[in-house]
């Protein structure tokens, strides 16, 4: 039956698919003013830089969590791999920033590829724990090879060259901000392109119903391996940025709290539409900065209260404004992932 579709249906379908992939006006609104922020808040350059790095890290996590449904509590493994790669290079005289980016991203992607095979099976909890376990093992390794990494003292003595020999990472943090922002932007464009490709769509299918996806002819494992590798690479870039802009790497980049934080950030911002990582990073860091300035000892209490409130009130309502804006974004924010489809009756393998 190779009938023809009605022209009107075909047109509507094409328009619908194009619409969801096209750049929305809102996206220009997000990106265009960003470089200017530094002039508005010159004193917050470091905070802005950290936000950009965290945002990139969260976007990388969104690729696997929001699009492929892989939860991870060990994403810092890749962040750390990137940071240490760039750090060790810089400490040994290879301080060119772009070289560090390339090497750190590649190293993290490689690590992601190698470990991706472990996260293909099992439940959410299994994946949480395997990713976390691998990260902690990596942390211990970094501690053990202190000759290379500096162990708990941290990697001291990195010298990062000026970017393109022109812009050095100064005390004001402006270079760092522009550098991180540029990398974030480039990585984001890449991720955006990726999720709107057939490959990206197929990830959502794998996430939505892995079994059915296989019965559409999708090699689900390969897709997951691929996206996990890409995501690890981007997380590695975020790690490189942190290493290069602070010119210091310590075991902390591999710590549990880093993975937990990025997960929180992403969940706050919302998963599955890429901007969640950015919004989450902005909200979380600003809150943290503001609260910890007000009450250095007990700011965690207020952050905690905030999280509880966000959940109880409902993220939709809380971030209502953002949510409405998000309607202009590519794809729908899948804030509340559908509950796992009920166990599939007798079809369960």
């Amino acid at each position, binding site marked *: 039956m190779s009938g023809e579709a009605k022209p009107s249906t075909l047109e509507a379908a094409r328009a619908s698919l194009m619409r969801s992939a096209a750049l929305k006006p809102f996206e220009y609104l997000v990106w265009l003013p960003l470089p200017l922020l530094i002039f508005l808040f010159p004193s917050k350059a470091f905070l802005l830089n950290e936000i950009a790095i965290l945002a990139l890290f969260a976007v990388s996590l969104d690729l696997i969590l929001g699009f492929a449904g892989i939860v991870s509590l060990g994403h810092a493994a890749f962040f750390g791999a990137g940071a240490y790669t760039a750090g060790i290079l810089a400490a040994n005289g290879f301080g060119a920033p772009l070289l560090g980016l390339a090497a750190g991203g590649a190293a993290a992607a490689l690590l992601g590829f190698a470990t991706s095979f472990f996260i293909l099976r099992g439940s959410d909890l299994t994946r949480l724990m395997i990713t976390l376990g691998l990260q902690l093992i990596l942390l*211990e390794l970094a501690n053990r090879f202190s000759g290379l990494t500096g162990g708990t003292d941290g990697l001291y003595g990195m010298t990062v060259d000026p970017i393109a020999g022109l812009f050095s990472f100064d005390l004001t943090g402006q270079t760092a901000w522009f550098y991180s922002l540029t990398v974030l932007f480039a990585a984001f464009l890449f991720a955006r392109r990726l999720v709107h490709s057939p490959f990206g769509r197929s990830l959502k299918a794998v996430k939505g119903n892995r079994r059915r996806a296989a019965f559409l002819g999708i090699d689900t494992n390969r897709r997951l391996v691929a996206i996990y590798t890409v995501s690890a690479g981007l997380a590695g870039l975020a790690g490189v940025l942190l290493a290069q802009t602070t010119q210091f790497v310590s075991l902390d980049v591999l710590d549990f709290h880093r993975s937990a934080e990025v997960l929180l950030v992403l969940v706050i911002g919302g998963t599955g539409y890429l901007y969640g990582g950015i919004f989450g990073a902005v909200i979380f860091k600003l809150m943290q900065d503001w609260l910890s300035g007000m009450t250095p000892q007990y700011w965690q209490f207020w952050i905690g209260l905030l999280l509880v409130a966000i959940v109880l009130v409902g993220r939709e309502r809380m971030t209502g404004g953002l949510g409405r804006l998000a309607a202009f974004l590519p794809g729908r924010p899948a804030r509340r992932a559908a509950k796992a489809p009920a166990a599939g009756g007798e079809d369960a393998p």
Partner: protein
Amino acid sequence: AAQESVKIGLILPMTGPFASTGRQVEAGARLYMSKHGDTVAGRKIELLLKDDAGTPDQTKRTAQEMVVNDKVSFLAGFGLTPLAFATAPISTQAKVPTIVMAAATSSITEKSPFIARTSFTLPQASVIIGEWAAENGIKKVVTLVSDYAPGADAQKWFASAFTENGGEIVEEIQVPLRNPDFAPFLQRVKDASPDAVFVFVPSGAGAAFMKQFRDRGLGEAGIRLIGTGDVVDDDILNDMGEAALGTVTAHHYSVAHDSPENDAFVKAFKAANDGMRPNFMGVAGYDGMALIYQALEKTGGDTDGEKVMEAIKGLAWTSPRGPISIDPKTRDIVQNMYIREVKSVDGELYNVEQETFEAVKDPAKEG
């Protein structure tokens, strides 16, 4: 009054596993200010406190912001070695005098000419207890240290001092920093049956260690417990109970230090902090502020980094812990080290000082 105030950026872990360090240092620093007023050489002193949760990139970011935005004249605090390391380049670049009030790895002061320290270095304590052990009939020792840089420092300097004086290290054990249970390690110590075990664990873990040490019957097996003062931190010593009795450590400060300066300090500290005992971190915070005040006196209120560092070098005064000074060469602290034993005094446990080694410099930087 026409002059602007002098800002001091105090960066400490106020949350997370090392929060109690932050708490002590802050309390010490504030106590000094309340006792000595908030003006020096005609300038008002302002303390800006920030939490870094013990994460180096946050410490560094905070330091950078404080330098660039708040225009602080001093950076101070630093609960852990990597936090100080991360900040060192900023001190150098911005020429901001940086007072390390807690971190104890020896090499910190070498990372920037603008760093001075008022806490202690692990080699100082380790070498003293190593020498003392060898001279007091201890022949074979097992070392048990937390597996991170300060632990390695402690292990290394204890071992060299101890073996140089004729002792023998029968086994070296590193305990993971995040270690909930000391049982297997202590069993290993017991099976090696040394004369003593030398221990360094971060002060928080001391209590658990101490109890398991007694519980496992190591004391009864004739194994003595020696170490740096961290394991018998004054802050929690009293709660450890009799398990801690008889522990011999080398350290630079004990609440029980017998001097008028200390009596006054302890009394005021407790009064200001709800009965909390000061420990060696508290006194380091106190002395850190003392250092800043005196340096400013000397420069006449000038906060130029290089001038201040010049003023800091060689400063000497009597702290609650005894006479101390800043080594002009290394900017590290020179102080008395004491051999103390845990004893019960009036129903409370104290590290009672027994021997004094005067004006000990950081051995790691000698020669």
